C-alpha cells in the first residue's frame, strides 16, 4: 500500500493548534451542566479548570498524533475511531475555552442539536438510498421543502398529523420521481436535474405560499404539532433520557428509519440488488435484476423519507410553513452523506455533528461570545470540502453514481 501521510499531517496541525490554545488558555473554570430537569437522579455539575484541562487534552492529542505517525511509517492507516476520538477531544478543549467563566448546558445543547439534525438525517438517508442505486441526489433540498409544504397544508386542512406526514412522504417521493424520470428515462445529467428541481420546488412552494396560503393563513397554514412523548423509564435516564427518549413521533421514526435503511441496504437481498445496480448496473442487468425498476423504487423511497424529514420543520419544530424554510438543510444533508461515506449510520453521525455545530452557534450567541456565528455555520461545508479533498481518508461514492444506464 502506498504510504499516505495526510492524516498524521492533519493531526499534527490540530495538535499544534491545541498547544497554542493551551498556552494561551485563561485562568478560570468552566461549568458543564448535565441536567434538563426530568431525570430521576441528577448528575452533579462539573467544574473544569480551563488551563489544566487544556494541557491534559493537548497531551492526549500529542499521543494520538505520535501514534498516527508511527502507523503511517508502518504503512498502516489511522483507524477511524482514533480520528473520531481525536476530533472529539479537540472539540472538548475548544468548548471548555469558549465557555470559560460560564455554564455550558450539555444536555440542552445536545437536545437542540438533535432537533436540528433530524431533517438532516432524513435527508441524508434519502441521499444514501438514491446514490447507492446510482442516481446523484442534489435534490434533497427540494424533497425536504416539498415535504414541509405538503405536511403544513394537509394537516391544517384535515387536522390529522398522520395524513400530514403521509402527504409529506408522497410529496417528497413525487419530487424524487421527477429526478428519477429525468435522469433515468430522459438520461439528462443528474446534477443538472438536481439543481433545477431544487429551484423548481423553491419557486412552486414560494408561489403557492404567497398566493394560495397567505389568503387564509388560519385554515391553510396552522397545522397542529406533534406532542412530545416521554417513553416510560427510558426518558428518566440521566443525560440520554431527556435527549433521546423525550421526543416527538418524527424523531422516533427517525431512529427506526436509520436502522431500517442500514439493515435493508446491507442485510437484505433487496439491498444487495440496490448496491449492485449502483456499482455495476450492467452486471446487475445480466443476472436479471431490473435496473430501471430498482432505481425508481430506491430513489422514490428515499424521497419519501426526505419528505418526512421536511415535515419535521412544520409539524415538529416551527408549526407553520414559510418561504424557503429549509434554508440549505438539503445541502448540509448532502454534505453529511458524503462525510459519512454513503453509509447510513456514519451519515447520521455526521448529521448529528453538523446539527451540533449549528446549535452551538446559537448557544454561544446567548452567552454573548465574540466568536462570529458564521464560522460555526460554515463548518459543515468546510469539513465536506476537506472530506472530498481526501484529507480524512479516501471518499468515493458508488461507482455508477451519476452515470445513466442505457439498456442495449
Amino acid at each position: 500500500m502506498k504510504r499516505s501521510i495526510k492524516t498524521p499531517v492533519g493531526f499534527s496541525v490540530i495538535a499544534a493548534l491545541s498547544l497554542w490554545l493551551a498556552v494561551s488558555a485563561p485562568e478560570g473554570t468552566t461549568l458543564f451542566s448535565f441536567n434538563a430537569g426530568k431525570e430521576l437522579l441528577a448528575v452533579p455539575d462539573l467544574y473544569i479548570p480551563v488551563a489544566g484541562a487544556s494541557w491534559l487534552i493537548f497531551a492526549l492529542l500529542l499521543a494520538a498524533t505520535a501514534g498516527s505517525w508511527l502507523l503511517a511509517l508502518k504503512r498502516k492507516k489511522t483507524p477511524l475511531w482514533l480520528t473520531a476520538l481525536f476530533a472529539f477531544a479537540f472539540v472538548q478543549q475548544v468548548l471548555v475555552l469558549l465557555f470559560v467563566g460560564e455554564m455550558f448546558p450539555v444536555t440542552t445543547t445536545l437536545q437542540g442539536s438533535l432537533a436540528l439534525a433530524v431533517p438532516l438525517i432524513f435527508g441524508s438517508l434519502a441521499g444514501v438510498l438514491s446514490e447507492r442505486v446510482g442516481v446523484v441526489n442534489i435534490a434533497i433540498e427540494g424533497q425536504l421543502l416539498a415535504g414541509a409544504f405538503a405536511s403544513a397544508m394537509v394537516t391544517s386542512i384535515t387536522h390529522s398529523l398522520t395524513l400530514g406526514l403521509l402527504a409529506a412522504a408522497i410529496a417528497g417521493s413525487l419530487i424524487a420521481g421527477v429526478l428519477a424520470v429525468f435522469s433515468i428515462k430522459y438520461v439528462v445529467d443528474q446534477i443538472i436535474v438536481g439543481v433545477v428541481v431544487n429551484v423548481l420546488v423553491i419557486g412552486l412552494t414560494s408561489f403557492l405560499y404567497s398566493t394560495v396560503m397567505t389568503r387564509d393563513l388560519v385554515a391553510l397554514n396552522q397545522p397542529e404539532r406533534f406532542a412530545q412523548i416521554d417513553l416510560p423509564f427510558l426518558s428518566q435516564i440521566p443525560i440520554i433520557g431527556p435527549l433521546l427518549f423525550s421526543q416527538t413521533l418524527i424523531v422516533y421514526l427517525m431512529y427506526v428509519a436509520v436502522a431500517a435503511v442500514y439493515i435493508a441496504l446491507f442485510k437484505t437481498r433487496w439491498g444487495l440488488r440496490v448496491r449492485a445496480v449502483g456499482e455495476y448496473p450492467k452486471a446487475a442487468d445480466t443476472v436479471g435484476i431490473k435496473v430501471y425498476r430498482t432505481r425508481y423504487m430506491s430513489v422514490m423511497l428515499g424521497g419519501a423519507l426526505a419528505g418526512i424529514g421536511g415535515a419535521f420543520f412544520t409539524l415538529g419544530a416551527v408549526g407553520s410553513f414559510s418561504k424557503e424554510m429549509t434554508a440549505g438543510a438539503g445541502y448540509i444533508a448532502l454534505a453529511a452523506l458524503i462525510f459519512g461515506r454513503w453509509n447510513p449510520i456514519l451519515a447520521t453521525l455526521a448529521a448529528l455533528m453538523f446539527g451540533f455545530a449549528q446549535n452551538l452557534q446559537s448557544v454561544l450567541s446567548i452567552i454573548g461570545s465574540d466568536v462570529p456565528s458564521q464560522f460555526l455555520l460554515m463548518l459543515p461545508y468546510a469539513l465536506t470540502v476537506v472530506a472530498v479533498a481526501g484529507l480524512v481518508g479516501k471518499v468515493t461514492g458508488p461507482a455508477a453514481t451519476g452515470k445513466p444506464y442505457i439498456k442495449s
Partner: protein
Amino acid sequence: MNKVVKQIFNPSSLVTVLAVLASFLIGGLLIAFANENVQATAGYLFARPADFLYAVWNAIFGAYDALFRGSIFNYKALDTVGMIKPLTETLTYATPITLAGLGMAVAFRSGLFNIGGTGQIIFGAMGAAWVGFSLDLPAIIHLPVAVLAGILASAFFGGFVGFLKAATGANEVIVTIMMNYIAGLLLFWILTTPLFQAPNATNPISPEIAQSAKYWRFMGDEYRINAAFFVMLAMVATVWWLLNRSSIGFQFRALGHNPNAAKVAGINIGLTYVLVMAVSGALAGLAGTAQVLGAEKYLTPSVAASFGFDAITVALLGRSKPLGVLAAGVLFGALRAGAVIMQANQKVPIDIVLIVQSLVVLFIAAPPLVRFMFRIPDVAKRQAQKNQVAA
C-alpha cells in the same frame, strides 16, 4: 435568409423554442390557478362557464402583459423615461446573468460542472467593492483597478476548486456547492467587520462605492443601465474567440471531449483544470463587479441574488455557446425585470420566474419530452431506422 429559416426550423432550435413556449404556458396555468377571480368563478363553473374562461384569460393576459410592460416597452407610461426604462432594466439584469452564464459555459464546454457561480460572484463583488470604497485613486484607473481586484478574487476562488480537483481528485460539483455557502457566510461576516461595514451602519452594508469607481451610467441617472453592459458584450466576443480560435480554448475543449485523449495529446490536465475554473470564476466575478459597481452602489449580503442559478440555466439554454448565452441572458433578464412589475401590478409573486426558468431547463434537457408534448416526430431517429432497414 434561407440559412436563417433553416436554423430556426432545425430540430434542436425548434425544441428550444417549444421548450420556452411550454414553460410559459405552464406558468400561465399556474398564474390562473392561483388567481382569486378564477377560483371564485370556478365555484359556479357549470352554471356560467364563460365567466370562468374570461377570468382565466384575464389572469394570464394581465400577468404576461405586465411582464411585457416591465421588460420591453411600457405603452401605458406617461413619459418617455417610463416607456423605455423597462428595456434598459432588462439589459441591466441581463448583464450579470450573461457574464456569469459565460463563465458556466466555459466550464461546461471543458467538461467541468461549475455550480459555484454564486460564490464566485460574491468574491468578485467583495474584491471590487473593497477597492471601490476604501481606496482613493484617480478616476481613470480607479474603475479598472476595482474590476481587476474583483476578477482576481473570483479567479483565485474558482481556481482553487480546479486546484483541488487536479491535486486530490475532489469532485468539483460538491466542492463548488459547498463553496457557495462558505462564500455567502463569509460575505455576511465580513460585512459586520469594520473593514467592510459602513461606519454607523447597524445592518450589514458597505460604504458607498466612490464615484470614480462606478461604471458610467451612460443614459443618465434615472436609468440603472451602465457601462458594464458593454463589458458584457466584449466578453461575449472574447469568450467566443477564446473557445473557438485560441490554443488555450482548444485545450479546454479537448479536455471536455475526452480527458484521456487530451492527456495523451500532451495537454497538462491538472493545469488546465485550474485554468478552466479560474477563467470561469473570473467571468462570474465580473458579474459581481457589474452588480456592485454598476447596478447597485453598495455591497450587501444579497449581492449575488439568484444570478448563480440564472447563470447555470442560461448556459444550458444557450447550449454553452457565447451568442446563445447572450440570447438566453437577455431572455432571463427580461423575465427578472418584468416580474418586478408583474408582482406590483398583478400580484403575481416574483417566484413565477423561478418556476418558468427551471421548467425551460428541464424541457431543454429532455428533447424527447418536448417532442412528445407537441407530437413532433424525431427526424434523426426515423432517419437512423430507415438506414438500418436499408442496410
